[in-house]
């Protein structure tokens, strides 16, 4: 058994044809390696707990140093865009929840708003406030999940228990609101299909009081923790220019010092009604991205706090036809999802089904920066960088 395995490994490394077929890395010029040892190509994933799903990364290594990477994705490809062409606008709505499944509410918001624009209807104020509250709660849940798993990857186990305990409270609110915890399908084209339940405001307020000190608690565990700082400071650095060139958005872009958030730059839903800051970093390293996301969680709480106190009365659904036939035309609408710019490009041919739906996924575009961020770093840093990019493979592969 043992000899067989090592034989296989040797063959895999020397068999040029297999490597050429799977990777561009071998085609590059050989770089000088430490002690003239052989470069090593190893495969990380798709079944690997630290790749957050089914991401496969082929690493070219010189000892512990990363010379280059290549991502192999598509293991979770379900053809969402093709499915959309064969469903009515309403029928496609639940499918979008299955892309970024830890932030399903954001996905739904982007899609519903895009179709509403195409139909030229606007959701009533009350619905928009409910949308903001639920979307921000979802951003909080998404960041909590990111924090727990990211810290776990780096070796801190405790934050995972804390964040999952607190995320549970958000999921309970979702469950009470619409019956689902993860793939919520909370919104409908034209507004919300559910009225808030009795005691919704009270429970959200209670949650705010509950969670505010908890975020300090997470920070106490990590922010000045020497191991955490050593593992994240100056790791996976990316400058603002590189971010923009690579199309990277969301907290990763902001941690590099670009003060850009679609909620402010091109406000949608009711975001222009609320006061909040856009947290930015300076160094564009893993530590700054951590700080930015922590501050974003506090800003989300601030938005929810403002919104919950003044949800307007009125209807929750605009007047939309049961059978939707948007006029011939195209629309691109994007929102600030927890991971970055989530866009929907929808082409209507005037029928009940979209002619084409294109989803611009933030995780997919952000993942492109991985190679640049880990070149020259150590293998262990690859894990940290995958964590800090905050990708969800359901959205990368669609």
């Amino acid at each position: 058994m043992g000899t067989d395995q090592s034989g296989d490994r040797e063959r895999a490394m020397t068999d040029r044809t297999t490597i050429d077929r799977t990777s561009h890395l071998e085609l590059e010029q050989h770089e000088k390696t430490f002690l003239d040892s052989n470069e090593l190509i190893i495969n990380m994933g798709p079944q690997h707990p630290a790749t957050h799903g089914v991401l496969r990364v082929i690493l070219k290594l010189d000892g512990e140093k990363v010379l280059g990477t290549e991502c192999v994705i598509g293991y979770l490809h379900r053809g969402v865009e093709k499915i959309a062409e064969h469903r009515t606008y309403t029928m496609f709505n639940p499918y979008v929840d299955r892309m970024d499944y830890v932030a399903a509410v954001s996905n739904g918001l982007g899609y519903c708003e895009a179709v509403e624009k195409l139909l030229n209807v606007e959701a009533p104020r009350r619905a928009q406030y409910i949308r903001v509250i639920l979307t921000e709660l979802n951003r909080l849940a998404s960041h909590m999940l990111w924090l727990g798993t990211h810290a776990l990857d780096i070796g801190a186990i405790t934050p995972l228990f804390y964040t999952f305990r607190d995320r549970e409270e958000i999921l309970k609110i979702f469950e009470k609101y619409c019956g689902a915890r993860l793939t919520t399908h909370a919104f409908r084209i034209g507004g919300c299909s559910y009225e808030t339940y009795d005691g919704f405001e009270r429970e959200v307020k209670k949650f705010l009081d509950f969670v505010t000190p908890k975020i300090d608690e997470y920070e106490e565990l990590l922010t000045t923790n020497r191991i955490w700082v050593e593992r994240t400071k100056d790791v996976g650095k990316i400058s603002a220019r590189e971010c923009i060139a690579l199309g990277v958005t969301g907290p990763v872009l902001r941690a590099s010092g670009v003060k850009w958030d679609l909620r402010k730059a091109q406000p949608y839903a009711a975001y222009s009604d609320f006061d909040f800051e856009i947290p930015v970093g300076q160094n564009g390293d893993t530590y700054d991205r951590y700080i930015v996301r922590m501050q974003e969680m506090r800003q989300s709480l601030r938005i929810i706090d403002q919104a919950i106190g003044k949800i307007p009365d009125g209807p929750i659904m605009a007047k939309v036809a049961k059978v939707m036939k948007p006029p011939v035309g195209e629309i691109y609408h994007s929102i600030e999802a927890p991971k970055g710019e989530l866009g929907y490009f929808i082409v209507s041919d005037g029928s009940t089904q979209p002619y084409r739906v294109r989803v611009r996924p933030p995780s997919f575009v952000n993942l492109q920066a991985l190679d640049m961020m880990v070149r020259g770093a150590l293998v262990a840093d690859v894990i940290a960088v995958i964590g800090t990019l905050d990708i969800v493979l359901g959205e990368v592969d669609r």
Partner: protein
Amino acid sequence: MISRLKGQHGSGIREANTYLGQEYIVADSSLIPELLQVLRDQEKFDYCVDITAVHYPDREKQFEVVWILYSFPRNERIRVKASYAETESVPSAVPIWPAANWLEREVFDMFGIRFHGHPDLKRILLPDGWKGHPLRKDYGIIQQDQEWVQINLGIESGQ
């Protein structure tokens, strides 16, 4: 901006319009490399949001490629569209925006549109040996590369 572009490239820009408050330009495919460069360098569209395509089987030039651009300094978005026949290849935007790399690979994977000048044009979401391009309109929703499924997954059908 639109009028300036029209002044510079008059005949190449077939249509420049606004729909639902969003600006778009329909350009000649021959003008595309120059137009994209001008949009980035002179008009400061520094962020390539998305590159995608739409398949219109009934048209003479079947594929409409769409570039969605955003400018950080201007806080504006614009869509550039151009039509290509199945045999034509599209100039790659990777030298202009590195972000175009994976986006173009996805368009190639899903539509079979080739981009010349792309550093590593190959499939991205589907397996390398897959036959067919699923987002074309003539590709059925339950259609699969049965041969690939049988060889690689060892099952009769993926359905």
